[in-house]
Structures are given as C-alpha cells and as structure tokens.
C-alpha cells in the first residue's frame, strides 16, 4: 500500500513535468493546422517537425487533441468512486466545537466523525488510508467558536487551509421546530464566482467532497465567492407555485471561509510531513 502510493505519486509528478513539453507540441500542432487551413506557408521554425506533427494531427480525435492538464489530476479517479470523508477536531475540543462537527457530519454525505483523543495526525491518516477514505477534514476552534478548517484529499492529494468566520450553527437556533430535520440526500452544488486559476483549484477541492447527486434532489449547498471570502449556505427548496417559483428554506450551519493556503501534498498542519515524497 505504501509503495503503491509512492509509485502513484511519482507517476503523477512525472506526468506533470511532461506537461510543459506537451503544451509546446500542442501549440505547434495548432499553428500548423491553422496554416494548413488558411493556405498560408508554415512558419519557418516548425518546418523540421512539420511532417510528424501533421501525421499526428490527422490521427487525433477530439479527446486527444487538447493536451491534458495535470492540475487536478488527483481527482481523475474521483468520479468513479463516491467520496468517503473523515471528520475530526483539534485536540481537546470544547462542547460547541463537537456540536459543530456533528452538524458537519450530516452536511457531508458519506462522512464519519471520530473523536480526536490523543492521536497524532499521521496515525489518523494511516488509518484513513487503510480504510479507503478519500478525504479528511479537521476543524479547529478558538474558545468555542470554530475558526479553522483543513481539507485534505487522501491519496497524496492537495490540502486546503481555510479560516472560518461568522459561524452560525444549528445549535445556536433554539427553536428546533422551525429548522426541522436536515435532509441527507445527495445535494446539488452551486459554486459561484470562482474565476481565477486558484479559484478553479479550490472549487475542485470542494466539489470532490460530494458524490454525484440525483438530478431531482431538493437539497442545495452553496459556496459563493465574494472578494476572497467564500460563503457557505445550506438550503432546501420547493417549487410550489409552478416551475418558475422557488421557495428556499435555509437549514444547516452557515459560515464564511477564507482560503489562506493550498499545499500539494497532505502535510499536516503542524509542519511535519505526512509523507515526504
């Protein structure tokens, strides 16, 4: 298991290193294709490679034409398997933090919560790997208020560090009847305004925490980005008056997230590496 993971990681890094060359070849092929289409002479720098590239252009189909980007390659196999999430806290959590983590367990489908106890992060990650978990989420707090969230994708995946602000938990709302129970169906996702490259990466990390939903579920999770602060909202909707009218009912916790770090491996937050590859 360990060696397999080492090998997988090395393959990933190697493929990522080839990306540069691939991109250059792709560019050249595109130039040649353009020149051929417009009937212009081929640029001089491409004359030598023109023959072989032209052969390749003919053999390409639409899947192989565009070069593969290896940025989110950690999630290449994610669509084949449903994600499995482990939720836990920092050491010695306070009662509000434990409640919050319980809520989060219901928010993420296919999630398990464990007590932290005195475990070291590397132990947790080892056990996760052996039980085929795909993601680990750690929640930190400050005097009862949750203030940090670390999302790690497990097979050598990326780690995103968020700070949590303006947290409102379901437990804070005293009136249980008003809130009702939380739906546990696989939700639809809305990821709004993630436009930059970093935004795309973060969106991918968040997206792959959830499984493929049924098309007609009523549960919506929203991650809306506004000036670098991501708002998390949890709604259930009803289309009562017809197809165009939508009534939203908010359930679940709401908080703002601020990304402050994304690392390539799954190094734990204390700085000692989970696996130095």
């Amino acid at each position, binding site marked *: 298991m360990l060696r397999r993971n080492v090998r997988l990681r090395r393959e990933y890094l190697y493929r990522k290193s080839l990306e540069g060359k691939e991109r250059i070849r792709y560019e050249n092929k595109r130039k040649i294709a353009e020149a051929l289409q417009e009937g212009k002479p081929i640029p001089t720098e491409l004359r030598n490679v023109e023959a072989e590239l032209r052969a390749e252009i003919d053999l390409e189909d639409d899947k192989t034409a565009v070069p593969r980007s290896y940025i989110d390659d950690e999630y290449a196999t994610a669509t084949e398997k449903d994600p499995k999430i482990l939720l836990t806290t920092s050491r010695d959590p306070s009662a509000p933090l434990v409640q919050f983590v319980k809520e989060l367990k219901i928010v993420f489908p296919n999630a398990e919560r464990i007590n932290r106890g005195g475990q070291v992060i590397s132990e947790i990650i080892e056990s996760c790997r052996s039980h085929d978990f795909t993601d680990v989420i750690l929640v930190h707090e400050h005097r009862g208020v949750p203030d940090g969230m670390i999302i790690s994708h497990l097979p050598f995946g990326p780690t995103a560090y968020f700070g949590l602000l303006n947290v409102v938990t379901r437990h804070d709302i005293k009136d249980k009847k008003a809130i009702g129970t939380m739906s546990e169906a696989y939700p639809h996702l809305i990821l709004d305004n993630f436009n930059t490259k970093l935004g795309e990466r973060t969106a991918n990390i968040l997206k792959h925490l959830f499984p*493929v939903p049924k098309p007609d579920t009523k549960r919506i999770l929203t991650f809306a980005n506004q000036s670098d602060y991501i708002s998390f909202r949890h709604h259930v909707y009803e289309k009562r008056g017809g197809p*165009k009218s939508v009534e939203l009912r908010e359930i679940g916790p709401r908080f703002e997230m601020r990304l402050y770090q994304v690392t390539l491996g799954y190094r734990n937050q204390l700085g000692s590496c989970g696996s130095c590859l």
Partner: protein
Amino acid sequence: MGRPSEAAGMEALHQLKSTEPPQWLAPSASLSESARAASQHLFASLRPHVRKSPFDELLVDNFDAEQIWQQIDLLTQPLVRSIRRRVKHWEKNPAEIENLLPEVADGGKKVAQGKKMEEIDDDDDDDGGDMDMDDDDDDDDEEMDVDNDGEQDGGKDEGDESEEEEEEKSGGIEDKFLKIKELQEHLEDEEARHYGLDAKNKKSKKKSGSKKLEDEDDDSEEGEEDKEEDDDEDEEVDLFAGGDDEDEEDEMGNARYEDFFGKKKGGSEPKPRFKDELGEDSSSGEEEKEEELSSDDDDDEEEDDDENVNKKPKVLSTHEKEVQKIKSEIEKMEKANLDPKTWTMQGEVTAANRPKNSALEVDLDFEHNVRPVPVITEEVTQSLEEIIKKRIIEGQFDDIKRAPGLPSKAPRELKPVDENKSNKGLAEVYEEEFVQQTDPAAAPLSFSDEQKKEIIEDMSIQSNVPALAMEEIAPVAVSDAAMLAPEEVFSGKGNVKAEVELTQTERKRRRAKKKRKFKAVETKKMASKKAREDELRKQKEGTLLVVQVTHLCCQINVMLNQKL
C-alpha cells in the same frame, strides 16, 4: 562708415555727460549711438599718441560692447604704460616737466610730483602686482635710455622739497570729496587693522626710508631707490595678492564711499555700523527682543542717517519684511532640526520609547493585504438567495458528473454454440467443405435445412422413478438424470409452512380453500355426469327413434311385400 567729425564727437560726449543716471538703467538706442560716437572721438584723439596699434580708428558698426572695449583696450594699454613710465620719469626728473609743460605753475608741478608719489603709493597700497614689476623694469630701461645722470641731483633736491611741500599742496586738486591725505591715512589704518600694526610702521618707515635715500648723493641712489621701491613693492606684492584690473583704474579704483560722501565720525564708523547690522539680524531672530533692540538700532540708524545719506529707511520695506520673515522661519526650522525628533518620526518605536497611550491618539496607517471581513447583512443574504434561486430555475449546478466509462473493451458477444456432439463425422464435414469450395452449385443451397433436420430435440421420457428402486436386488440402472428434480416433484408455490406452523387464520384459510376446491371438482363431476346422462338419454331417445323409424320401415316393407 564715415568717421564722425570732432564736433559731433564732442557733442556726443556732452550728451552722455548730461544724461541722468536713471536713464542708463534701461537700454536705449540713442544712448548707445552717442556712446559709440563719443568713444570713436576719444579713440581718434588718442590714436596719434600711440606708436603702433592695429586699429587706425575705432570700429563700432555692428560690434559688440565687448569687442569695442577690446579695441579700446588694445589701444590704451600700451598708452597707459608709456604714460606711467613718463610720469615716473618726471617724478624723478621734475625739471623735464617744466620743459614739457611750461605753462603749468610750480604748484601744479609739485602737484604733479605729489600726485606721482601718491600714485606710486597708491600703487603700492593697492594690489600692485605685475604691472609694478614691469614698470620698474621699464623704469630701469628708461633710465638707461634717457639721460638722467645729470639730473639726479636736481631730482634729489626736489625730492626734499617735494617732501615738505607735500602737505602744503593739498589745496589745489583736492576738494571736499577728495582728501587724499585723509584717504591715505584711512587706508593705512584699515590695513593696519587687517594685517597688524607692524605693517603701518613698516609703511611709514618705508616712506621715510625712501625719502632718506633720496637725500643721499649717490649714483646708486636711484638704483637703491629702485631697489627699495622694488623691495617695497615686492613686499607689498607679497602682502597684497594682486589683480591686474586695479592698476588700470588707478583713478577710479581707490574711490570709496567716504570719498564721495565724506567720512563719518572718524574711522570707527564701519565697526559700529557692522555691529548695528548684526544687532538687527540677531534681534530679528528673537521675536521678543526684536522691538526693544530694533528701536535702539533704529535710533542708531537714525543718527547714522542724519550724519550720512543712508540708504536704509526707518520703516522696513516689504522686501525687507519678507526677508526677515523668511529668516525667522529658517531659524525656527533649524532649531527644530536640532531638537530630538518626536516618537512618530523615529523609526521603530517600542512601547518603552514612547509616552503612555500615545499610540491610541495617533492615526496609524497600515497596509492591509487582506480584505476586511464581510459583515453578513440582510442584503447580503438576499443577494445570495437570489443567486441560488436563479440557478435552481435554470437547473445549472456545479456537481461532479460521473465520467463516461472509457470504451476500453467491446462487450463480448456470446454466440449460441451448440454443445451437443455433432452427428456428422469429421470426414463428412471435410467432404462438404471440399464440395463447397470446388463446385458451389453442386452443394446444396444452404446447410441450414440439414442442420435443422439434425437438430432434433431428443425427447426422453422422464418418469418419477422412486429412488427406492435403486435398492432393488437387481438394480435397474437409473441415473439421477432420469429422476425428477425436487422442484419438478413439488407442486406448490410461495411460503410453504408445515401444519404445525400455521396460525389459526391460516388453518381456516386452508380449509376454506380445500372446500372450495373440492366443491369445484364436485360441480365439475356433476356437470360431466349430467352431460353424460343427457347424452345417454339423448342416445336412448335417438335409438328409440331409430327403432321406431326402423319399425315403421319394416312395417312399410312388410306392407309393400304383401302387396307384392
């Protein structure tokens, strides 16, 4: 260009003389014209006296002031030199003057001599420099050339006379402006102050020394004189580092304020004046004392003003005021610079280095690289919900989609392969293949009919042979395959329960079912029975009918036969 006549030149000169000084401040074409004409006239008048000069006349048309001056310079330099030489010569040989200028009176002669002496002294006093050296050399030459030996005695004697009469002659040239003796003394005082009192003594010694030398009756007198003068002038050259310019302006160069406007209160005027000015400046720096001192200074100034025509007015002009203001500001700023800086201006300041709670009062300016935390208001929530609703209505979500499986392998096609043994032998198979290859016509159109014939379902009868038959003495070879499978034996469906397991309702249900069944069977039986009986009856009736019919027929036959 025509050379203007003498009269025109004189007229130009007079015009220049008559113009008011302020008119010189602005450049004026007419003035420059007249100035040029005048300089041309003067040049022309001087030209004959110069032995060799590159210019015969002064060229002024389209020439720069600098260029005109250069021309004049070229002309006058040698002229001045020669004049000086001559003057010196006459100084030593006063008799010659009488020859040259017989019309001048004795007083005038003495004046000339005195002037010469003073000139020389002035030269000495001023920055003598090279010209004096040259003059002395020239002097020596001149004296070699000119026959002076005979006149040395005369020169000596008259040198004595000149001494005594020096003091007398003052009335002639000098007026209230030009008190040359006073000027001299003043200058000496100044120099004494500058360079120490020894100089003054030296000077007087030199003077007297030179005079004594003149008294002697030696041939080498003049040489010594000259030497002395040389030495003096050497010394004075050393003392006064020279500029050549002053030599040319002998008459004008030594003019001082006092020459024009008379001396003020002895020689001590400049000092208190300077002090007054100092006093003013220092007082202007300190606002508190300004008024007191300035009033004093003003008083002094006023006194000065009364004595001399002082340019400084009692009330300060605007410019003066501005200057004072600026000066005071400068003073302030310089003072502030010298003070230690406030803590806000010092680089890194910890809490210990600044007064208590001072950071609260100051407006500190940080660079924030993080945007401020958003406050979640109603509007924010509204806008978020709007976005969500829109997405729901559109049906556009950002879920992950299951990737379509890669068509790596085509699904296996399972052909229905017959597992039974082929009826044809292999030889027959080859035979058919051969025939097909060689003669397609001969081969039957398709093999499928034969195959169909061959694929006959083997029907075998399977009877429910009890297993116990196996245990007979002469066991019949009954294989398992011949026997029926349990499901073929069992004729029930669903959840089979034994009688003991049944609940009451179930038992009742079973019984009712049984009865229904039985009844159904019974009715069927009855129906069939009935049908049979009906048939029998019908048959009977039929037969009866038939019998009756046959009976009738017989009767008929009999009757018929009877008739026969």
